[in-house]
């Protein structure tokens, strides 16, 4: 099968899973993070359900020489616990708590409530672009001084 079709199927299944599980609802996700309020444990069941097929997939992966529809495995290899990992994850959690949204549900919601989620999606891509281009901008500024 063509790689693009495999990817589209994977994305669509992912989006379907998010919508079916209730994770497309920012209030429900915030409810999971709301330990001291009306706590909603649903997200824990979603995570548990998602880890099962993936744990099996990693075992199968160990017996494959190459993926089924691509020439090679291209997977993260770093094991370094560094500052960017920690700081980035803390900032992500802050935004996640404020909004109840993370990248998957935000993009999935474009297919359900596009107008409501649009401000988040635009801001998210601006945030990603800031991460990419901010260092270059500050370096250029420093170099010109």
């Amino acid at each position, binding site marked *: 099968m063509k790689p*693009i079709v495999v990817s589209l199927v994977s994305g669509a299944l*992912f989006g379907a899973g998010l919508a079916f599980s209730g994770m497309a609802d920012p209030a429900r996700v915030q409810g999971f993070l709301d330990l001291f309020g009306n706590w909603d444990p649903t997200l824990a069941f979603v995570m548990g359900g998602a880890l099962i097929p993936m744990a099996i997939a990693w075992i199968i992966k160990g017996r494959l020489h190459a993926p089924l529809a691509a020439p090679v495995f291209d997977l993260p290899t770093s094991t370094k616990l560094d500052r960017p990992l920690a700081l980035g994850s803390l900032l992500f959690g*802050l935004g996640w708590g404020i909004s109840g949204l993370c990248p998957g549900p935000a993009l999935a919601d474009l297919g359900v409530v596009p107008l409501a989620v649009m401000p988040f999606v635009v801001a*998210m891509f601006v945030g990603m672009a*800031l991460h990419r281009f901010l260092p270059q901008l500050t370096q250029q500024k420093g170099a010109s001084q």
Partner: protein
Amino acid sequence: MIPGFPNAMPVEGFIGGLLIGLAAAIMLLGLGRIAGVSGLAARATGIADTGAPRGIAVAFVIGLPLGAFLIATLAGGVTTKFPVSIWPLIIGGLLVGFGTRLGSGCTSGHGVCGMSRLSPRSLVATALFMASGFVTVALLRLGAFL
């Protein structure tokens, strides 16, 4: 239904979770890649110039809303409740975009794919963004914003 948690959807959550895990398994075994939404979204838009081939990233990012739309159509709608004000969406979006790039992943890449692989980086990242989310919502509640 779970006693004491009338709003919880454990069955739908678990089944939806299985679908998400299956989707990530297809990406891993089919294409040899991590189904990390933040990375694929950055790649699809051209914000990142390394990572998955562009077409694969674009197809995945198109698939997400398509799958959600199909579920909404089949199930007769998907419940969503958004913040009343636009500011939590804008501030949250900026932080999520910046943070997931700096931290090399989000709930899908670190949470689902990395944790199931017992990647030390993903275990630490997931613990930190979960803790940060819990503290953030607790503080919002303290400030009576919720």
